[in-house]
Structures are given as structure tokens and as C-alpha cells.
């Protein structure tokens, strides 16, 4: 064992030790505020109108960190571990080989094994499609992977609660598989088969299986750190955005356009389809909107379509398949978002 691995393992054990000690000791339980209390504090702060905006932003940041630090830490470690240990080449093979239901299921559930970084999804989509994985499973993967990765789910658990987290998993996989299948049926036989790739070489096994376990744990920590550097600034941006929403957008406006009811849900679903939301940023943003009066259905619709689709991703996909394909699956996804929002609103009417 080299020095680096030992240090990495010690750090990992320490982190987990601290987490468990804190949770068992209940060190944070006295500090945590419930959503209702929190709403009252925000309202009071703004009503008195004596608190300057920057202090309000700091309050928001501290409040969000208090709710999510544990989940966030676990999310980063999970992301690093997946990057190092996930059998990505096997998942890719499995997705391209089977017929019928299997590739859809693999694409829907295996997404998080393949990609943590949303910018790396389009080449994977293109590669799957051109290697003959079929249009349907490739689209399923494209739509389900960003919404259903462990980091996003853990952060949702921390900031929005278990109902949102569970619903997100179910809805992301379900909608991904459904939209993938329907798009595949829609274009059956009308699209020319993709030009086969002529690279004369299989992608190499990029995972170094022969490395020792401790070295791989060290790699996990390095990948986690990479992920922290990449994502943490974006999350902070999302939290500041949430604070600004709470401070400046009048709740009446949010209730009117993003409150409860079918029209707000449709609108929120459509915004999600076009707006670019980097991974994990949607969670604090949605919490800010929920605290200001966004409906639960509208929030769920955005959580589904927001990370899965964006205008830049649609344009990127247009370079690989005919533009009518993204148009069809984006419309289907919008409908799915609306339906998912309505169902969630029915079961969870209040945040």
C-alpha cells in the first residue's frame, strides 16, 4: 500500500465516523428547523423589512447547508465510488444486446452506473444508438440517467424529503422507459438505420481491474473531490438563486403561475423541458420556490423534465439523429411531466 491510499482510507473512515457520531448524538437535531418554522422565519424576516438582502441570502445558505450537508457528503462519496467501481462496459453491452423489455430496464435503471456528469450523456447516447442499441433504449437512457443518479436523489432526500426523493426515482425510470418505447414505436421503420461506426477497434477496458482495492478506494476519493470541485459551486449558485427567489419574487406571482392546478403544472413541465439546469442545482431552486408557494405538482413536473431535457441537449442530440426525433420525445416528456405532476399533487397536496 502506498502512502496516498492509506491517507485516503483514513480520511474516508474519519468522515463516516464523524457522520455516524453526529447523527447518533443528535448534534444537529436541535438546530434543524421544520419547513413550517422555516417559512415563518422567512416571512418574518421579509415582513419586518429591516433585514438587508445579503443577510437574508446568508440565512438561506446556512439553512440549506444545515438540511443537506450529510446527504451532500454521502452523494459526493457515492459519485466517486460509482466512477471508480461501476462496471460501465458491461452495462453498455447489456443495453445493446437484449431484445424487448430488457434493454429498456437496463437503460432506465443503469443510467447512474454510466454517467455522473450530465455533459457526458450525449456521446453515450450517440454511441449506444450507432452501435445498434436501438433508438428506444438510447432515449430511455438519455432521459432517465440525469434525474436518477444517486447524488441527485440523496440531495433531494436532504432538502425536499423522502416523498419527493421516492417519487423522483419512480417517475424518472417510468417516464424514461415509456417515452423511449413510444418514440421507438413512432419512428419504427421510418428512420434510416444509423451509419455503422467504422472504428475497427472496440473501446478499451477503461477500468483498471488489476489495481489493488486500497488504490481504488484512493481513486474513489480523488473522483469524489473532482466531483465536489465541479458541482459545489453550481449548488451554491442554486442556493443563492433560491434565496433571491424568496427575497424578490412576490409569493402571489409564484402562486399564480406555479401554484396548484393543471395549468401551472403544464407550464412548469414546459419550463423544465427548455431550461438548462445543471445536475443537482434544480433541488435547492425547487425548495426555494416551494417555500414561496410553488405547488407540489408543479415542483415534481420540473424535477422530472428539468434535468432530463434542455434546449442545449436537444440541439446536441440533433447532430446525431434527425431533429424530428428530439421534437417527438421532448413533447412526450412534457406530457409525462404534466401527468407525473398531477399524480404527485393528488397524493402529496401540501409541502
Amino acid at each position, binding site marked *: 500500500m502506498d502512502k496516498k491510499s492509506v491517507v485516503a482510507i483514513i480520511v474516508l473512515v474519519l468522515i463516516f465516523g464523524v457522520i455516524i457520531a453526529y447523527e447518533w448524538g443528535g448534534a444537529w437535531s436541535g438546530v434543524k428547523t421544520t419547513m413550517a418554522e422555516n417559512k415563518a422565519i422567512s416571512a418574518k424576516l421579509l415582513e419586518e423589512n429591516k433585514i438587508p438582502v445579503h443577510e437574508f441570502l446568508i440565512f438561506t445558505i446556512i439553512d440549506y447547508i444545515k438540511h443537506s450537508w450529510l446527504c451532500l457528503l454521502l452523494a459526493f462519496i457515492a459519485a466517486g465510488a460509482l*466512477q471508480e467501481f461501476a462496471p*460501465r462496459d458491461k452495462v*453498455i453491452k447489456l443495453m445493446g444486446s437484449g431484445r424487448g423489455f430488457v434493454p429498456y430496464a437496463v437503460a432506465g435503471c443503469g443510467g447512474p452506473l*454510466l*454517467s455522473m*456528469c450530465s*455533459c*457526458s450523456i*450525449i*456521446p*453515450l447516447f*450517440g*454511441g*449506444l444508438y*450507432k452501435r445498434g442499441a436501438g433508438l428506444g433504449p438510447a432515449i430511455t437512457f438519455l432521459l432517465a440517467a440525469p434525474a436518477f443518479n444517486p447524488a441527485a436523489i440523496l440531495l433531494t432526500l436532504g432538502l425536499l424529503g423522502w416523498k419527493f426523493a421516492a417519487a423522483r426515482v419512480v417517475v424518472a425510470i417510468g417516464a424514461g422507459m415509456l417515452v423511449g418505447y413510444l418514440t421507438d414505436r413512432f419512428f419504427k421503420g421510418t428512420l434510416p438505420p444509423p451509419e455503422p*461506426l467504422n*472504428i475497427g*477497434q472496440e*473501446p*478499451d477496458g*477503461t477500468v483498471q481491474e488489476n489495481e489493488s482495492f486500497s488504490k481504488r478506494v484512493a481513486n474513489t476519493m480523488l473522483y469524489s473531490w*473532482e466531483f465536489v*470541485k*465541479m458541482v459545489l459551486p453550481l449548488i451554491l449558485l442554486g442556493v443563492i438563486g433560491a434565496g433571491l427567489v424568496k427575497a424578490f419574487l412576490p409569493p402571489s406571482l409564484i402562486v399564480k403561475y406555479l401554484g396548484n392546478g393543471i395549468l401551472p403544472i403544464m407550464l412548469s413541465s414546459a419550463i423544465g423541458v427548455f431550461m438548462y439546469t445543471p445536475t443537482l442545482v434544480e433541488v435547492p431552486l425547487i425548495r426555494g420556490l416551494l417555500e414561496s408557494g410553488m405547488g407540489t405538482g408543479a415542483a415534481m413536473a420540473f424535477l422530472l423534465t428539468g434535468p432530463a431535457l434542455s434546449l442545449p441537449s436537444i440541439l*446536441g442530440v440533433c*447532430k*446525431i439523429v434527425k431533429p424530428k426525433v428530439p421534437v417527438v420525445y421532448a413533447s412526450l416528456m412534457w406530457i409525462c411531466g404534466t401527468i407525473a405532476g398531477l399524480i404527485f399533487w393528488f397524493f402529496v397536496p401540501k409541502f
Partner: protein
Amino acid sequence: MKIEIFGPGCHRCHDVEKCVSKAVSESGVEAEIEKVKDMGKIVDAGIMQTPGLKINGKIKCSGRVPNIEEVKKWITEEK
């Protein structure tokens, strides 16, 4: 020698760029480094997981950031 780096321009792709340019200058070879950012071209090159690296048209790694020693080894292999 022709070195191609594939990636839409995210954080990890920049790490590969830095690593490759360092390895090239340390090995003292003449290399033409090309950054491929176009999605269609990345897919056509057979790269499924970005960031990807090709030296003289051969895929050397994809889906991870290589370290300098690895890149130097590949450069000597292809010399």
C-alpha cells in the same frame, strides 16, 4: 504525432488537455493536439465516454482523466 482530445468542454476535459500538453512537453515529441468538441464528431470517432483521448487515431482512454505517466507511456508507444 497526432493527438485528439474529445469532450464537450467540461471540467474533466480541461484536465485531460492540461495533462496531455504537460506530457508532450516533458517527452519532447512534436505533436499536433486537436480538441474535438462537436458532439457528432465525438460519436463518429467511437468515443462513448468523455473525456476521450486518441493518439495517432487509436483510442487510448475514455471516460476518465489519465495521469501524466500513462500519457507519456502511450506517446513512446506511438513514436
